[in-house]
């Protein structure tokens, strides 16, 4: 299988999906001639032209709202929001219109819009180029929210999103764009929503992590292994709908769980995962479900390393669970 970075996998998948289906359009700020702020859409305009790779005005709410109308009218728009932090001007369109159309029309119509947004820290972006806003959107019924951590999953989730019947938000961990390389299946490769993945098996503790925290979880698992603790790392891949069955089965085996994410702690998605584990695995739990998260602060600039979870902080939470 060919190797690709996460960024290359997303680029190639957009290319494949556009070649496959003339209804697929890519739109956003500078996605055309400029190739996108991270160059994810580089070259698409040369192959597919400006009618299908649309440079839009700087207007996130308008872009998403327009994409909704396009999707209602038979197209398959894939919107790029330059940074997940810039998604808030489009928040109203996403939660008020996009998420609700299927429900309020009793299934008569929906808008299969894909919104891609690079999220997370690790590039010293400061307060407005680093956030992980997934929990806001998971809180809104009607949205599928996914976050890949490998090039193969990036391809599979994006292809499923483009072809699927409902709106999907794809948060792309920008810290991994060019730092993660992996095999990407050629040709058709679809990762179904709501199906997680066991990154590495283990018997002593279940560590649930997504996005850029998956490599951190693996490193923490290495640290724990040196102490004789065998960690099972689970990447849900789709945050909503969540593959709680996979997590439940794992925790029932290991009896311990830690959830790891870089978004702030309070009302972060880890709180929901923790609650679900305790509801479902209460009698099997040997320790409270731990959380390793970002802090309840705006995203910092100089203190980014202090803010972000890392393998050592994660190993501390693992130790606390093991020694409880």
């Amino acid at each position: 299988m060919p190797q690709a970075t996460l960024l290359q996998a997303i680029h190639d998948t957009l290319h494949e999906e556009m070649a496959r289906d003339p209804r697929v359009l890519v739109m956003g700020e500078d996605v055309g001639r400029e190739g996108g702020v991270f160059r994810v859409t580089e070259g698409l305009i040369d192959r597919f032209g400006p009618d299908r790779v649309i440079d839009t005005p700087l207007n996130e709410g308008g872009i998403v709202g327009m994409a909704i109308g396009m999707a209602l009218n038979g197209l398959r728009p894939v919107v790029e929001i330059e940074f997940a932090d810039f998604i808030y001007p489009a928040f109203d369109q996403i939660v008020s219109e996009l998420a609700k159309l299927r429900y309020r029309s009793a299934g008569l119509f929906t808008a299969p819009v894909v919104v891609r947004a690079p999220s997370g820290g690790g590039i010293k972006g400061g307060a407005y180029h680093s956030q992980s806003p997934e929990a806001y959107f998971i809180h809104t019924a009607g949205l599928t929210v996914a976050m890949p951590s490998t090039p193969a999953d990036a391809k599979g989730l994006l292809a499923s999103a483009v072809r699927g019947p409902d709106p999907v938000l794809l948060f792309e961990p920008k810290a991994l764009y060019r730092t993660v390389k992996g095999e990407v299946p050629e040709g058709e490769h679809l990762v179904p929503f709501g199906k997680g993945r066991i990154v590495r098996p283990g018997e002593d503790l279940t560590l649930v992590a997504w996005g850029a925290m998956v490599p951190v979880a693996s490193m923490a698992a290495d640290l724990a292994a040196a102490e004789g603790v065998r960690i099972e790392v689970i990447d849900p891949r789709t945050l909503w709908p969540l593959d709680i069955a996979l997590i439940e089965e794992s925790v029932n085996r290991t009896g311990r769980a830690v959830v790891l994410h870089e978004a702030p702690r309070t009302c972060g998605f880890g709180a929901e995962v923790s609650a679900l584990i305790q509801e479902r695995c209460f009698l099997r739990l040997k320790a409270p479900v731990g959380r390793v998260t970002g802090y309840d602060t705006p995203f910092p600039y100089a203190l980014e390393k202090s803010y972000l979870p890392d393998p050592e902080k994660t190993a501390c939470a693992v130790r606390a669970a093991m020694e409880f």
Partner: protein
Amino acid sequence: MNVNRQEALEYMRKMVLIRRFEERAEEAYGQGRIGGFLHLYIGEEAIAVGAMAAMKPDDDVVTHYRDHGYILARGVDPKVVMAELYGKTTGVSKGKGGSMHLAAVDRHIWGGYAIVAGHIPLAVGLALANQYRNLPRVVTCFFGDGATNNGTFYSALNMAAVWKLPLVAIVENNLYGMGTAVERASAVSDIFKKAASFEIPAVQTDGNDLLGVRDTVRTMVEMARAGEGPQLIEARTYRFRGHSMGDPQRYRGKDEVEAAKERDPIVLWRRSLLESRLATEDDFRKIAEEVEAEVETAVRFAESSPDPDPSELCANVLVPG
């Protein structure tokens, strides 16, 4: 007048239908049979009826929440519209939408939207898709004067102008955004002037003059269809009822409302049909009787239709995976 007798009577029938439909809905609301909120269109009927008469049946329509008039003017059966207001399974959205979110996709009515101005970008997207698919359809987007004070209005108009999209924005200026008079909330009281920022052709028209609305919309829709880009119409009108049911209307006096009723669009249309001898009192009586029966049937249909089963609560959030 540029109208034949058959058209003239059909316009009258539709305006009377909307009027009586809403008066009966108002009653049902008072009896607690319709829940939540009810925003009546009474006084503004000439706009929906005139605009629909000017469009082709597959021209797309996106509307604000005061939306009973458009779907009825498009010819959707009043039974299924009333049933939606009642929240019944036989409604246009099986009771999952309600009064403010009426849609009929097979008639190219893409819905009423309750977030003010939030639907304008959707109309832009529908228009872009029509352009991309080489479909000769124009999108009309209806909203009130209040929406034009919202940034979404400007950003949407800008996009429509950048890409010269087949979109006609129809602003129903009924002089109040809920209870705030236009001149207290908008730096420009002549709303159509706002389109100048985008070099979008715009006109102001009398929204209570049915034929004037129809002909203005027809001109603008055909300009948009011909590739001349977005157009904007400000239709000046007046809402005879409160913003929604239960509005104490402290922002205006009864005398102002009574004076406005002298320009009731139905009265004006009736007068011009009599003067031009296109119709007689008998015609109006016949229309009134037919509409009365049609609305009565709609009310009975809604009342006798089943409520949604609680098992429907969690259906249609996402396609089951």
